[in-house]
């Protein structure tokens, strides 16, 4: 009697276990960090796990290189994580999962993330693939203390690139800094200014257009400024191809009074500069056609090949909820992409540094200055190709290896080859 009871009991337990394992799943998230995002997301996920013990969330912190170079191969092989934090969202759009059937409230996503949904889904699709973990906007930073020491006034709103470079050059002369300004080595970074001078990368048919007068105008300025010693030569000349090189350390060292980068630098600058000097965000200087920066950011997307779409949707819904987005943004000092959070305002940024709040507000205001030609770029699938070709060849001009005219020819040829290969 006892034996059969134990047998029955263990049978039930086994059934119970099987039943629970049938619903429980692993949700694997591939995450990279520039700063503290890894710790913040781990903390947020631990709350989710406490509320949802049957879902096993595994956070894999990887180097950005893995996401950029290996994720695509994994996806093409039908492998990969269940959720990934990715910057190359448009190019890889065919691999993302449409969450709509698994979400409890699809309309919430449409309202709050709809504005950026095209950035991560294929043209013409209305799928919900994920959401932006942050919005980034390119823009300038200035070392206010250096300007003050040099007795040069910070150019105000509406100041052009020439104004800014002239002012920074005056600071360079007075304070003997290494250069007047620097821009990160990236085609993405100069695209906002290109558009400010009237450039339009997107041809009438949606394919890349040849390099136009706007791009040429800014490229000429860049090369001239480099040869005059105003733009820090090191950043663009120090690598070849489309390798990314930031100029943040030079700004932090007070080697340059003006630095054109983007809103993601705010946390980094705050940590490393500390109390060293006062710094401000300046928005994007103006060109002949506008004062535009370029938007971007990393998205958290669900992968099509997941074995657990329902659990994935639950995790995504938690992370996309208004309170979680707000807390994530406040702790990582990132601009939120959630319409509700932005509208509600009242962010209490997790920092003592007064420079941070001012800088973030400047970027939020500057978001309104983005020109249409630039706003279309994150959702355009040839964006990264254009950026890569630009930085590759313009840096060669700066290194003295070819002339600008030769570079324009090569840029068009490089892009055309990529377009041809994709057919």
């Amino acid at each position: 009697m006892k034996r059969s009871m134990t047998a029955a009991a263990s049978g039930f337990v086994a059934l119970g276990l099987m039943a629970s394992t049938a619903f429980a799943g692993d949700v694997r998230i591939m995450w990279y960090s520039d700063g503290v995002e890894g710790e913040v997301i781990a903390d947020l996920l631990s709350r989710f796990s406490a509320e949802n013990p049957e879902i096993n969330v595994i956070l894999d912190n990887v180097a950005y290189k893995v996401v950029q170079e290996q994720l695509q191969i994994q996806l093409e092989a039908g492998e990969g994580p269940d959720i990934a934090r990715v910057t190359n969202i448009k190019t890889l759009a065919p691999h993302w999962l449409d969450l709509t059937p698994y979400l409890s409230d699809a309309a919430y996503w449409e309202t709050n993330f709809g504005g950026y949904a095209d950035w991560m889904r294929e043209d013409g699709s209305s799928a919900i693939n994920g959401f932006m973990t942050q919005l980034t906007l390119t823009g300038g930073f200035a070392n206010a203390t250096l300007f003050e020491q040099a007795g040069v006034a910070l150019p105000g709103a509406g100041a052009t690139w020439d104004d800014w470079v002239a002012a920074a050059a005056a600071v360079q002369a007075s304070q003997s800094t290494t250069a007047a300004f620097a821009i990160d080595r990236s085609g993405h970074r100069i695209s906002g200014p290109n558009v400010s001078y009237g450039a339009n990368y997107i041809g009438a048919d949606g394919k890349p257009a040849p390099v136009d007068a706007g791009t040429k105008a800014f490229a000429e300025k860049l090369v001239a400024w480099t040869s005059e010693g105003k733009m820090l030569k090191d950043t663009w000349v120090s690598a070849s191809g489309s390798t990314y090189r930031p100029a943040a350390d030079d700004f932090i060292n007070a080697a340059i009074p003006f630095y054109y980068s983007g809103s993601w630098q705010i946390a980094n600058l705050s940590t490393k500069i500390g109390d060293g000097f006062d710094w401000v965000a300046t928005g994007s200087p103006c060109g002949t056609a506008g004062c535009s920066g370029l938007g971007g950011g990393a998205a958290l997307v669900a992968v099509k090949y997941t074995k657990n779409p329902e659990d994935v949707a639950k995790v995504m819904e938690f992370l996309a909820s208004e309170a979680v987005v707000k807390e994530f943004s406040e702790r990582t000092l990132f601009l939120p992409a959630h319409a509700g959070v932005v509208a509600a305002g009242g962010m209490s940024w997790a920092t003592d540094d007064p420079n941070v709040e001012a800088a973030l507000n400047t970027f939020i205001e500057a978001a309104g200055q983005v020109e249409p030609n630039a706003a279309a770029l994150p959702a355009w699938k040839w964006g990264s190709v254009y950026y890569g070709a630009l930085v590759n060849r313009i840096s060669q001009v700066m290194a003295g290896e070819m002339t600008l005219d030769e570079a324009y020819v090569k840029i068009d040829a490089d892009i055309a080859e990529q377009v041809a290969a994709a057919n």
Partner: protein
Amino acid sequence: MNSFKHQAGAVITAPLGWLAGLIDPPLRVWQRWTGQGGMAAFFLLPNMAIFGVFVLLPLVINIIYSMTSGAALFLSDRDYVGGAQYARLLDCGNYGDPGTCAEDQFWTAVQNTGLFVILQVTLLIIIATITALILNRELRARSFWRAVFFFPVLLSPVVVGLIWRWILQRDGVLNAAMLGMGLDPINWLIERNWAFAAAVGVTIWAHMGFYALILLAGLQAIPKDLYEAAEMDGTRPGRVFWRITLPLLMPNLLVVIVLSLIRAVQVFDEAFVLTGGGPGTATLFLTQYIYEVGFASLLKNLGLASAASILMGGVLVLLTLLQLALGKRNEQKGKLK
């Protein structure tokens, strides 16, 4: 101490010996059936199987890739184009001037790699030989000095590139020291010639110790009585070197030269971390070109990269055949002795 080592060794090898004993009977059977040839095949099998699957198969697939085009990653989705990728690579108005080539950066990389190989191998051999000669002298604490020169070989290439980049960058230690001595700092990694020199120097730094030790072993095999005879005759050290040391060291020296040549053609890790191919494309070497075009760049072209890697492989085949031929001659010499 020795007996402890022996006992420890015995403890470790005892279970292994027992395992080996277990395998023996089936192998005897195999040996009876297939003879010596079969046993040779057995011994070769594990190594060759791994080579085959993980090295040769990708190489073959790589060759197939080099004859395709398209943006898809896996072969089934790509288009066959025959030799078009090779044609594109070799399409040049004037082979001496990369600017006239369809793939200008490929030819820049070829020229850079060629110059690098010539410079680096020459200097490496000279420095390694001098180091080996010095280490061969009657020094106290010889193992300490050997360790000094061999130490960088142990570091991973990424670490090597990082350390030297920190030292040579515009705001690095070297410039700080120069400022301290009243000299003008040089932007080592941004001036074209200095950046190239840095790539050569850093790779020599990282590998010299390995070759110096091989040469040292060769030097130590030269019979001492030859030197004693020379000293009794009052021969100058220079003459001793040219007439006695160098000829007897030659077999080792040739092996070291070819090995370092093969490695120099493939230069990548340290140089990439150090200069990233810059300034401009002054230190862009062939392997980096292939890696970027095939993998890392925003402008990927897998077929082109595969074709370039096959071409590079062709050059290396020539170098390795050279080494085989030299090795054979070496063996003959050894056998005659």
